[in-house]
């Protein structure tokens, strides 16, 4: 998909005015403070910003993985419309404002009860974590960890392959069903190897192994059969990240949250992992929220980019728009601070000062005290998103005062 036909794709996920606060001894830390953006079907959206700007918290909000307490959701919604989901209850699939004209039901991930959330987590929305060494369980083999995804979300398919039909009753079928859902009891495990159950249980295990091996092979892991039996410490960093990607893609999700997936890797391995993510994303038309601090990387792999600063979005637009014509002073500073081929040696343009404290912050633009273009109104009120070009918004007062101000369109006001 190119950036050109992007606006036609339906919006698959949307964050509206998300506010996450953390309790601390010194007060409320406003980690995410009114973040809003949309992710369209099949698009790769980059979320860039520095440490502590709230990009990871925003990403984790999609999977309801924010620890509450100490965090609390002070407002906002994270909406998600799974592909092929139930029809929208308001319009019965006709397409209305509430479902973004898709006709599918919209769920608010922040208020979803635990059980439906578990059905989405891993199956419809998956996550690739930064450090595969920490995200994988060191006491389980790779095969056992990948099997969990299938046992959680694909137990019907596994049972069908083991020859257990949904109508079948009796203790043997029930025992197999429990095994396929990872709810097996002590007695089930004892009976698993004995004749009445053993052949069906072996078929179930074989089906599971086949699924796991296929998932590993998808990420170009050589020799999946050997990797399945290995423990995480036996694999290299790049290989572990491939396993994480295999796990995330196992159930063919609609949305992947990739939280700095290559930060812990070498450049040569990073290039291969990026290539893999991009190829699989194109092939399956999965949407990706790509969280990173590396601007040059986001520029290479993403379709659109949102720049975050101190818990807020500073600028959002297509990669071409933001990198060719950065409008927010923070984006400009960030791009200038990256050493690159074109600039000579000597001083880099650095942003003076440091990131502000987010404990009960005063109103106004968060970047005001480091900004070269600071004006009186910057510290009085919060800036609002202004459209500077179709699909390109900058959250800055500079856009209002003139040079190339454009009125906010309906596109801007919906977010």
């Amino acid at each position, binding site marked *: 998909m190119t950036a050109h036909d992007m606006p036609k794709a339906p919006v698959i996920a949307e964050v509206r005015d998300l506010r996450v606060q953390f309790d601390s001894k010194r007060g409320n830390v406003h980690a995410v403070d009114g973040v809003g953006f949309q992710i369209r079907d099949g698009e790769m959206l980059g979320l860039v910003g520095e*440490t502590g700007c709230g990009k990871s918290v925003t990403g984790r909000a999609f999977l309801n993985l924010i620890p509450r307490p100490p965090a609390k959701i002070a407002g906002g919604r994270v909406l998600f419309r799974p592909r092929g989901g139930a029809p929208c209850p308001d319009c019965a699939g006709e397409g209305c404002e509430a479902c973004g004209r898709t006709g599918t039901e919209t769920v608010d991930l922040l208020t979803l009860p635990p059980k439906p959330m578990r059905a989405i987590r891993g199956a419809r929305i998956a996550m690739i974590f930064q450090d595969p060494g920490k995200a994988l369980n060191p006491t389980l083999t790779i095969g056992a960890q990948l099997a969990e995804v299938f046992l959680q979300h694909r137990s019907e398919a596994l049972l069908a392959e083991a020859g257990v039909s949904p109508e079948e009753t009796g203790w043997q079928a029930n025992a197999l069903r429990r095994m396929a859902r990872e709810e097996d009891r002590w007695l089930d495990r004892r009976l698993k190897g004995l004749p009445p159950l053993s052949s069906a249980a072996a078929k179930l295990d074989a089906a599971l192994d086949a699924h796991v091996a296929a998932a590993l092979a998808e990420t170009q892991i050589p020799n999946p059969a050997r990797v399945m039996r290995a423990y995480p410490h036996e694999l290299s960093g*790049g290989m572990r990240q491939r396993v994480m990607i295999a796990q995330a893609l196992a159930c063919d999700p609609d949305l992947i949250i990739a939280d700095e997936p290559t930060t812990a890797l070498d*450049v040569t391995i990073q290039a291969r992992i990026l290539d893999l993510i991009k190829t699989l994303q194109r092939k399956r038309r999965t949407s990706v929220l790509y969280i990173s601090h590396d601007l040059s990387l986001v520029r290479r792999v993403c379709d659109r980019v949102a720049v975050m600063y101190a818990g807020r979005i500073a600028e959002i637009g297509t990669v071409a728009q933001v990198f060719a014509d950065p409008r927010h002073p923070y984006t400009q500073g960030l791009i200038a601070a990256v050493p690159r081929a074109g600039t000579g040696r000597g001083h880099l343009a650095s942003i003076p000062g440091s990131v502000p404290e987010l404990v009960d912050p005063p109103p106004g633009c968060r970047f005001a005290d480091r900004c070269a273009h600071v004006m009186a109104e910057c510290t009085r009120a919060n800036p609002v998103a202004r459209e500077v070009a179709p699909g390109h918004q900058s959250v800055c007062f500079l856009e209002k005062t003139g040079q190339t101000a454009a009125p906010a369109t309906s596109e801007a006001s919906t977010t």
Partner: protein
Amino acid sequence: MMQQRLSEKSAQRKAGDTLLSVRNLCKHFPIREGILQSTVGHVRAVDGVSFDIRRGETVGLVGESGCGKTTLSQCVAGLTTPTSGEILFDTGRGGPLGQEDRIDAMPRDRYRTYRRNTQMVFQDNFASLNPRELVIDCIGRPLRVYNEASGSELTERVVELLEQVGLGRQHLYRYPHQFSGGQRQRISIARALALDPELIVLDEPTSALDVSVQAQILNLLWDLQKHRHLAYLFVTHDLSVVRHMADRTVTMYLGRVVEQGPTETIFGNAAHPYTKALLAAKPDLDDDPSVPIATLEGVVPDPARPPKGCRFHTRCPVATPDCGWEVDDIVRLLEADETLFQSLQGVARKTDLEAGLTFADETAAAALHAALGSDRVPLAMRTATETLDLNGKTVNIRFRETEEVSLTDRGEGHQAACVLGRGGQ
């Protein structure tokens, strides 16, 4: 007193003459196994490395993780004893560097001069500062160890150092955890500057920092170098930082230097395929986003048994028959294929270049024989094969003899260890 010492030292300092020389340095770590912990092999972290650092220049050292760049920097800083080879340091003895300047053979007073003139800044700024020490103790410790200052003079010296790195008197009585990552790295730099060294070894000084903070630290390092005529050994995996900071760049792969030269030459006209691959893999804000990122296939071989010849030949996209193909390359090939590897019974090695591989059955041997003649192996490897015959369950193979691949001159201080473009070819 400080001012006096500085001017006295800068009179001695002449830009351009060699400050430190590393010659044929090796650092091998033993692999121990079993109850008796007997040595079964060696990880050759650094295996025959030579380069010079001149006064006032920045040498960038790049490579993937595990290539030995951190071990090398620790040897240079005197934190690890090398297995063999020499490190020569100019302690002001006068004359060209010679055997008397070896840091492991120096008299005690000159060794102290070397130690105080070579300081280090570590990657993890949190782990490298004692969490129970105040900033004043931490930065003041080198001054106290070398009896440079005490009492109120020490405090003033520390304040002066803090101001040089962009901090101030108000930070004297704080603990490391009260600072941000960028500020802690500034404290590490102030500590390294305390004794006014000639050389600072910077081991990934900015890789734990954000871009905007990284820019501030790089600017600080740049200013300090201009002001104090410091030499830097800048160890990093980030090529854009090296291009920005270094006068000369050294690329390492599996414990060996594969290419070194002026930074502009390395980045503009790299001669070694590994340097080219590293450069191509790193996205830059100035490159064309429509060109896909070039990837490098294969994995870094085990440094306990590095490949013969050019160590990069197992992954090299432009490998030639002269790159040092050997029996181990077939073993590596077999390891990737589980069924064949399991039926392998033994490798009867006559030399590194000639061996007979025995399999449990004839089909496996035939499969290997067929694979070695097909395009499942690189063309260069097939061309380097002198004899390949199948004898029942045994495959006999012999590779042609090749010369050792060493660094050769490519003009203007540029050296590369690659058979391509080597003199006479």
